[in-house]
């Protein structure tokens, strides 16, 4: 029996074969070919495979979300077999160049044609040509779409996964995660919790490449992974899996019930999502709304700036799928740990404190404007709240709001409909914002506290650094006192306050949050029902005085 110990960051037990994440090779070589007929056949085969893949994707999309959703893939299919496109590629290959390099050239040439058209719909098609071409190139170079090439679901092993990689993963193929590096607030961990599957991080070199394909049992609660489990260990873990299944059944009974404490105190429980498909998980777990839609994942999934139209469709889908429930969409939060090539951001010594999030948006208003236009247009389809990340000063909020007003004027002039009731809010994730929350509250309709960054900045502790473990204490009284201060300032000014960081789902703090008057907790979809259960068991009147007293006391109580 081989036991691997890491840190469990998403509970659950799963068994399956170990599979190492396959990274796509990004460099395309330009090679002269002599057997041009064979090269042409290679292209034709890859083209046929791409058309087949796209057909399957279209069918899947149609079954899950209807004809409209299938449209994108059908368009891609038609582009892949377009006559001019094919002729251009044929010409290049017959000229003696390898297919990958020729497709790259033809891709850029067609993308350029669309990009130069004076119509935003047609400009957006440039991304489609690129996507189709990259798919064919991927097939030719043997790269794996979505990083997993397996017929059976697997336990996915990687050093760590970048946000753009987690977006592309074929989630139906993953039973659990093991990463060599990473931290509890890394994107792999967040994804695992959203999916409700086990994840273990920070196993280092304990996992060896020769383990590929061998069965492993992963316990995301204890952070243990076992190969060649003996009968006793196996029985123990399987029992645990069964218990969890029963627990889930019990939690399912809470669907449709209210989030109200024994003494009648209620709180809204919303969900954090990264893309429109996650709405399915929100509704399945009975989330009351969306408290954080991380819009940057739309950008991470593209290889160029997503167009207004593309974003509009995504926001519209989330708003209409949520059927009139509140949806908080956070504007672009890029930089720090989330880097995107096409933004061409300079390398920074200290990116967490660098050019990121709202700072980029205010410095490059043309990028921000596209997103705001898409958001306001989508607001006609549901109950939208727009939230700005990484605020430190009042002027930043005022400048961002001014851009919103400009966008609304433009839409008025164009006769485009939008909702007059869009709420504007900010993330409280810098200590500065918490400290001046009394002033900020006068500028906005709501606050949402991003506890991951708030903890990192308050404690001067890098959230990506695995070695800082015990110093990164999200229960630190400094963080909790800031949260109380923010809640008090929000309520004095008649606005609502939520928590959308990982801390929101921390059941040890639920009574504290209820006691300081947090109005909304936004958590991963799987955390909704356990949190509801905790709220329903709580009695705020009984604990408020003690919890708040302890928090604000100059004495340490334990």
């Amino acid at each position, binding site marked *: 029996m081989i036991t691997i110990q890491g840190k469990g960051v998403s509970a659950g037990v799963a068994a399956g074969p170990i599979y190492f994440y396959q990274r796509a090779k990004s460099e395309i070589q330009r090679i002269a070919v002599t057997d041009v007929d064979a090269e042409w056949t290679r292209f034709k085969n890859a083209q046929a495979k791409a058309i087949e893949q796209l057909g399957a994707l279209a069918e899947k999309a149609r079954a899950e979300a209807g004809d409209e959703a299938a*449209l994108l893939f059908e368009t891609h299919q038609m582009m892949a077999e*377009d006559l001019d496109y094919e002729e251009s590629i044929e010409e290049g290959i017959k000229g003696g160049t390898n297919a990958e390099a020729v497709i790259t050239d033809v891709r850029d040439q067609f993308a350029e*044609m*669309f990009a130069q058209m004076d119509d935003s719909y*047609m400009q957006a098609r440039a991304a489609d040509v690129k996507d189709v071409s990259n798919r064919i190139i991927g097939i030719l170079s043997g790269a794996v779409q979505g990083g997993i090439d397996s017929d059976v679901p697997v336990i996915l092993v990687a050093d760590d996964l970048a946000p753009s990689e987690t977006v592309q993963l074929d989630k139906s193929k993953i039973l659990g995660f093991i990463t060599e590096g990473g931290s509890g607030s890394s994107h792999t961990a967040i994804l695992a919790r959203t999916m409700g599957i086990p994840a273990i991080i920070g196993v280092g070199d304990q996992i060896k490449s020769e383990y590929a394909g061998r069965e492993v049992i992963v316990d995301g609660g204890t952070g243990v992974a076992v190969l060649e489990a003996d009968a006793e260990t196996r029985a123990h873990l399987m029992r645990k899996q069964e218990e969890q299944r029963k627990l889930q059944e019990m939690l399912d009974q809470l669907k449709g019930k209210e989030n109200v404490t024994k003494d009648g105190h209620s709180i809204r429980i919303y969900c954090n999502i990264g893309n429109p498909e996650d709405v399915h998980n929100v509704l399945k777990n009975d989330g009351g709304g969306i408290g954080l839609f991380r819009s940057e994942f739309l950008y991470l999934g593209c290889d160029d700036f997503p167009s207004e139209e593309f974003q509009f469709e995504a926001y519209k889908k989330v708003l209409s799928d949520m059927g009139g429930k509140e949806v908080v969409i956070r504007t672009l939060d890029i930089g720090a740990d989330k880097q995107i090539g096409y933004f061409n951001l300079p390398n920074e010594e200290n990116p967490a404190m660098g050019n990121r999030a709202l700072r980029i948006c205010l410095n490059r208003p043309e990028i921000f404007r596209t997103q705001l236009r898409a958001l306001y247009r989508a607001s006609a389809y549901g109950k939208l709240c727009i939230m700005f990340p990484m605020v430190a000063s009042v002027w930043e909020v005022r400048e961002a709001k001014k851009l919103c007003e400009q966008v609304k004027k433009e839409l008025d002039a164009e006769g485009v409909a939008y909702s007059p009731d869009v709420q504007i809010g900010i993330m409280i994730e810098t200590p500065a914002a918490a400290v001046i929350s009394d002033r900020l509250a006068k500028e906005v309709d709501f606050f949402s506290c991003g506890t991951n960054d708030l903890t990192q900045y308050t404690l001067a502790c890098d959230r990506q650094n695995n070695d800082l473990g015990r110093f990164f204490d999200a229960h630190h009284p400094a963080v909790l006192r800031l949260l109380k201060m923010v809640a008090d300032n929000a309520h004095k000014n008649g606005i609502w306050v939520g928590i959308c960081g990982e801390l929101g789902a921390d059941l040890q703090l639920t009574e504290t949050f209820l006691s300081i008057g947090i109005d909304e907790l936004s958590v991963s979809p799987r955390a909704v029902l356990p949190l509801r259960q905790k709220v329903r068991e709580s009695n705020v009147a009984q604990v408020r005085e003690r919890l708040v007293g302890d928090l604000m006391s100059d004495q340490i109580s334990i």
Partner: protein
Amino acid sequence: MKSFDYVITDPVGIHARPAGILVKEIKNYVGSTVTVTKGEKSVNALKLMALMGMGIKQGDTVTVSVEGENEEEVAAKIEEFFKTYF
């Protein structure tokens, strides 16, 4: 050759999906060549991206011509198609 003029009424003009369906439709009429002309530019309507590349918008007038077998009949069907999709 049989041709007809058509004024685009769809707000997005000749966009990807109907253009793709048009390509499929034309493939049914073996032996016919369908050409779409706007101003001085003409494209074979089988060429999806070239057709989209013409940037045909709402309010534009295009001339569609059909050459080959059963021109009359095919042109009538293509005209019907334009009325439905564009």
